[in-house]
């Protein structure tokens, strides 16, 4: 039995480009919904993200995605997690994501795809109904 279980979420913004505003908004929003958010900011390599997820023992990883170029990086994170024998993690991405790309992300192992402007509450509900 879990007496004081809190859902832990890692929020990261991979790659070198772009702003962290979106990631920050999500991080604060999830905190206000009662999640413990580990915010790691910009310029994250796949290796750093995977190791952070393992050390922090998170239930969820949320990546702020800016372009299709992040697909490779996301795949690398998933590979690294597997390679390092991590426990099951719910992988979510958010950002500007063309509709036609969604199946590709899902196929790769991303559970939730949220386009910019999605209410944070929706992300929170998704997390709550998808983690064991």
């Amino acid at each position, binding site marked *: 039995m879990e007496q004081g279980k809190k859902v832990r979420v890692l929020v990261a913004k991979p790659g070198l480009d772009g702003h962290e505003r979106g990631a920050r908004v999500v991080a604060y929003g999830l905190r206000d919904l009662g999640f413990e*958010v580990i915010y790691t900011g910009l310029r994250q390599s796949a290796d750093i993200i995977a190791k952070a997820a393992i050390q922090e023992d998170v239930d969820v990883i949320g990546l702020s995605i800016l372009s299709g170029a992040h697909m490779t990086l996301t795949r690398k994170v998933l590979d690294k997690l597997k390679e390092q024998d991590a426990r099951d993690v719910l992988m979510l991405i958010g950002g500007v994501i063309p509709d036609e790309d969604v199946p590709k992300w899902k196929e790769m192992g991303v559970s939730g795809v949220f386009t910019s402007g999605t209410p944070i509450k929706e992300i929170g509900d998704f997390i709550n109904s998808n983690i064991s």
Partner: protein
Amino acid sequence: MDNELENLVNGIADGSVRSLAGMITCVENRTTGWLEAMKKIYSKTGHARVIGITGPPGAGKSTLTDRLTRTLLDKGLSVGVIAVDPSSPFSGGALLGDRLRMKDVSALEGVFVRSMATRGALGGLSLAARDVVKIMDAFGKDFILVETVGVGQDEIEVVKTADLVMVVCVPGMGDGIQAIKAGIMEIADIFVVNKADIEGADSVVKDIQAMLSMSTDKGKKTIQVLKTVATSGDGITELVDTLFQELEATKKKAGRQRDRIKEEIIGLLEREVSRLIHKRLDHNDKLDVSVDKILARECDPYSVVQEITDDYIK
């Protein structure tokens, strides 16, 4: 103990990082069986040196922690970091941002960084953080750095359990060091004036030295005040040297260890007693009867408490 925790305990003995992370979660959540698991690992603790790092928000504690970690790694030592941030009193959630300043170092071999939220008014933060220290210790970390914001009593309690406490100050904190909360100065073994690249560092150093020289506690007069620039690394070598010297010196204070264990036992006992009180009294008809009597002024709360304690002690 259930299977999951048993596996985690064994995993820790085998050096599994995933087990280390998993056991910390179980202990933080107080998952059933956590106590048994702590008992199992206890015999493997006692090796790590624990450094508490505290100071006002934004003083550069995480940046400093990053630097210290690197320096210790270069000496061939393994490092665990515990970074504590407050939970939101409104949502119970937390934004834990200390990793932001440690991202490269946190991925290096031998480093394990864990963010912890204070998780509300349970008063249990210092106990939970102490447990996390022990888990990292049992895992084999040589050094454990514990970062907390020096604002709340709970956070101060956390660092107090360290072998050595570094209080981080910065220039421009308003009226000299007045801005630092009382209570935090008393626990310092080393003072660090970080952001020494900013004007006013020397005057903060002087203020602290003046304060220390006025102290009636003889030991306080010899406390070192060091300047650092965590962002560039200036002063870090000197800081680490001082840290090692001070650790050697505290090792000789034999009483400290004993006092700490006594304190811990009493702390755990207090929590246990408080838990038992709630268990017995939260939904207790007899207590409701007493409340009615008190409301009617036929009785008073003091007598009721005495009656209950007399009853317990029997």
